[in-house]
């Protein structure tokens, strides 16, 4: 008589020894890509930006951000300033320095949508004086 033995069912297991490697890889990715947003007194929340449809992505590596608040305070390089007369050239001077460091500089505006256009016009005039001509107005994407 042939020896017919029932085969013992083998234990099936997923190898999990590399699990921690994967976990640490993911961990490293998130650690590197995390940007902790520091909220300061001078800040224009995303909800206060204007809405638009025809928006495009702005490459981050050549940008500098100028915040313009409703009370016409301008924040550049975390330094608040105001343009009250044609002698207030802090924005232009800062941009001339930045333009020398990065000739492909793009100036991003994070402006409160209720801001009067006059102050924006004054800032843009200083941009022209500093030869930084590429600007981007940051907007929210309109969700219809």
């Amino acid at each position: 008589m042939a020896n017919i033995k029932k085969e013992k069912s083998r234990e099936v297991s997923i190898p999990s020894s590399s699990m921690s490697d994967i976990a640490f890889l993911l961990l490293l990715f998130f650690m590197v890509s995390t940007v902790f947003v520091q909220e300061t007194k001078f800040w224009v929340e995303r909800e206060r930006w204007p809405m638009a449809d025809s928006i495009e992505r702005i490459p981050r590596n050549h940008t500098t951000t100028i915040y313009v608040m409703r009370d016409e305070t301008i924040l550049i390089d975390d330094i608040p300033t105001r343009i009250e007369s044609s002698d207030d050239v802090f924005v232009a001077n800062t941009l001339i320095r930045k333009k020398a460091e990065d000739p492909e500089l793009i100036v991003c505006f994070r402006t409160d949508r209720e801001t009067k256009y006059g102050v924006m016009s004054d800032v843009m005039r200083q941009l022209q004086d500093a030869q930084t001509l590429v600007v981007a107005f940051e907007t929210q994407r309109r969700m219809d």
Partner: protein
Amino acid sequence: MNIGRKRKGKAAIPTSSMSDIAFLLIVFFMATTKFDVKEGIRIVLPQAADGSSGKTQSLALTENEMTRLQIIEDGRISVNNEPPRHFEAGELDALIQQKLRVNQQMIFRVITDREATYNDMIRVVDRLKAADIEKISLSTN
């Protein structure tokens, strides 16, 4: 008497909970990560007008070459010196298309009052950009 030397246990750091710790940290970073993607309307400003160099020249442009969109302080828009009125987004699109039919190379000059809001200007520039117009001039009065 049986005095045996105690066998030394092998020293090891328990690593079985390592992945738990790692996943905990991942969850933390995933929850706090904010990808700061910049999106907006991109415009290239003209060179600063320098009167002394004599590089600038004045051009007299007709209504068939340039459309003036004047935004007054309450957000109403005056097109080519017509009486100002409120424009809905759809109406603005229709107006732009109508002007483009007259001239494909039409220049749009957006003149925003200093007292008008930034939002009013962006609203108009957004519609112009939506129509793929590159010749946009921004100015104020």
